[in-house]
């Protein structure tokens, strides 16, 4: 055969494989409001950057007449392309081929591209759209999942791992997204659960739909399993691109540096955003935007545990991770969910050398039987652990309340913040004036002729003496009390001089964070 005919044979083979599950299956996919696996990859990656590998992989099923079936690409597309000009490894499960079910070779393709990502030290993005394990392939399907989970764990903290759930992702399959750093879901399309509605109905007699059990909203608002929620697939793709602009490609490389830009101060005026009365709420995200480059801030876990805010912004062109109490929601208390949310984010930033800026304004921990019984002790400890463990530059700005255990947890000097700045409105104290005065002066208040007046007096007395940043500053727990308008200047300076910060930790295999 001539080269020409060999080439045309190749082209024919490729064309067959590129059709995936064929027209009918593709029509079904479209009818569900979903893009095809290949369309998704192309929409996400830079134009013409996708190089597909393992197109001709055949499945390995032998039983149940599977040997007579041909599954193009074995239901998953893998390859390498670029985002913002930088290479990434990607795989997308193809629901049009055997429901995107995971068999031995399907998993092999995924683990192969994951191994590439680790060798090349580039992020891995997995697009999940699969009915689950290919039952016909039995234990080999399970082996496939196990191999993926193992690699997810090895890659954790080395390369960013991103999971996009664009279809069902059920049973064991959900543990790969769970092990990765960021999970994206899309309304009405994403479905994640360990045991589905069918099992719940037969075993427990409870009726629930897939959407109610593990739809996008549930995972983004209730469980916190998903970090980003989008209304459409295209919106999710834009969110991924935005995230990729902030994070480094691996744990040895800094994130892309952008040109410095001042914040849009006319839209984010601190004196308009910020009430000095510590009992009044405000949206702390506006304060973050008042200091970040171009007032941009990419929020993570926007819909879950909104009493703490986490996300990325840029300061002088470089990525910074922000953690801030949100007085607008539950007065900004720490609780089980917000501790989990912040703790994990701090560890991501530390793993990938992203400096942390913490903005503090919290009354303490959320009281309640439900919280105590849910293990708020253990979960709350994750924040302490993550901050204490982190060796990236840590800069803390205390805005108003920093009471009790909450003060310690929010990257205080004692957990080795490199710089603690406090606004003149800061109140660093063991608890709020009302609570403290009632305890300290209990006897005097009780024995007074007019307890209410004495109580008020004592509260005022306590407020005057302790509800300020100067007691903490007198002990050196605050490095500088600063004017709010100077925050960007001070934070930028602190970041600038912390560039070569190095801190040695005791040698160990790994610590034991309070999971």
């Amino acid at each position, binding site marked *: 055969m001539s080269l020409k005919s060999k080439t045309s044979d190749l082209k024919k083979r490729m064309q067959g494989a590129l059709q995936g599950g064929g027209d009918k299956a593709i029509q079904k996919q479209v009818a569900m409001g979903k893009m095809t696996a290949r369309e998704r990859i192309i929409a996400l990656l830079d134009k013409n950057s996708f190089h597909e590998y393992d197109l001709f992989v055949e499945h390995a099923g032998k039983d149940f007449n599977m040997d007579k079936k041909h599954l193009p690409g074995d239901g998953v597309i893998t390859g390498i392309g670029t985002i913002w000009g930088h290479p990434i490894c990607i795989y997308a499960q193809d629901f049009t081929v055997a429901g995107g079910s995971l068999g031995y070779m399907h998993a092999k393709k995924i683990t192969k591209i994951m191994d590439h990502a680790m060798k090349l030290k580039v992020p891995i993005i997995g697009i999940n759209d699969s009915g689950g394990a290919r039952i016909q392939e039995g234990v080999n399907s399970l082996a496939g999942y196990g191999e993926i989970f193992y690699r997810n764990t090895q890659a954790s903290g080395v390369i960013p791992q991103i999971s996009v759930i664009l279809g069902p992702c059920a049973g064991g399959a959900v543990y790969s997204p769970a092990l990765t750093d960021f999970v994206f879901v899309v309304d009405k399309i994403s479905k994640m659960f360990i045991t589905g509605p069918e099992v719940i109905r037969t*075993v*427990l*007699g*409870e009726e629930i739909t897939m959407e109610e059990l593990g739809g996008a909203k549930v995972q983004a*608002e*209730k469980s916190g399993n998903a970090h980003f929620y989008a209304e459409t697939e295209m919106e999710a793709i834009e*969110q991924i691109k935005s995230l990729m602009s902030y994070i480094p490609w691996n744990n040895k490389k800094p994130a892309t540096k952008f040109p410095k830009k001042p914040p849009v101060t006319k839209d984010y005026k601190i004196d308009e955003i910020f009430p000095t009365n*510590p*009992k*009044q*709420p405000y949206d702390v995200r506006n304060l973050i935007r008042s200091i970040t480059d171009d007032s941009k801030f*990419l*929020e993570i876990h*926007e*819909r879950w545990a*909104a*009493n703490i805010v986490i996300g990325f912004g840029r300061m002088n062109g470089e990525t910074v991770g922000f953690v801030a109490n949100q*007085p*607008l*929601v*539950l*007065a*900004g*208390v720490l609780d089980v*969910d917000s501790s989990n949310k912040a703790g994990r984010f701090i560890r991501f930033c530390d793993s990938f050398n992203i400096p942390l800026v913490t903005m503090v304004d919290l*009354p*303490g921990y*959320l*009281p*309640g*039987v*439900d919280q105590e019984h849910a293990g708020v002790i253990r979960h709350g400890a994750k924040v302490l652990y993550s901050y204490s463990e982190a060796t990236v530059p840590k800069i803390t700005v205390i805005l108003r309340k920093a*009471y*009790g255990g909450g003060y310690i947890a929010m990257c205080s000097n004692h957990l080795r913040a490199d710089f603690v700045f406090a606004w003149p409105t800061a109140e660093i104290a063991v*608890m*709020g*004036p*009302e*609570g403290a005065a*009632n305890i300290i002066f209990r006897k005097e208040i009780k024995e007074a002729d007019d307890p209410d007046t004495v109580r008020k007096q004592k509260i005022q007395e306590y407020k005057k003496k302790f509800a300020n940043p100067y007691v903490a500053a007198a002990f050196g727990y605050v490095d500088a009390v600063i004017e709010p308008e100077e925050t960007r200047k001070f934070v930028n300076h602190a970041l600038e001089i912390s560039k070569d910060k190095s801190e040695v930790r005791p040698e160990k295999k790994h610590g034991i964070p309070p999971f």
Partner: protein
Amino acid sequence: MKQPKYNKKLESINIDMTVYRTMLTQKYKERKAYKRPDPKQIKAFIPGTIRRVYVEEGQKVKKKERLLVLEAMKMRNYIRAPFDGTIKKIHVGISKPVYKDQLLIEFE
């Protein structure tokens, strides 16, 4: 990026005797008040199906005596009397599915 849809209404929350104005989350609003368990009430520790009822209302039973079989996740669990006592009311029947924490039997 869209702003999240918070319940715009500000409410109050008391933390350490100080009342703060803030928004409350759905989860916070839906939290259940703690109720001290009544030892006289036997509740399902797991959702499942009642397979056998060993006792009758008014019957005297000794501690650890079998009361019910609660089948759950293909396992048969004996529900036994927590103390010597008299059965006041049986709230379940054979083959009936029960949900978690459902009242099964009351003691006098």
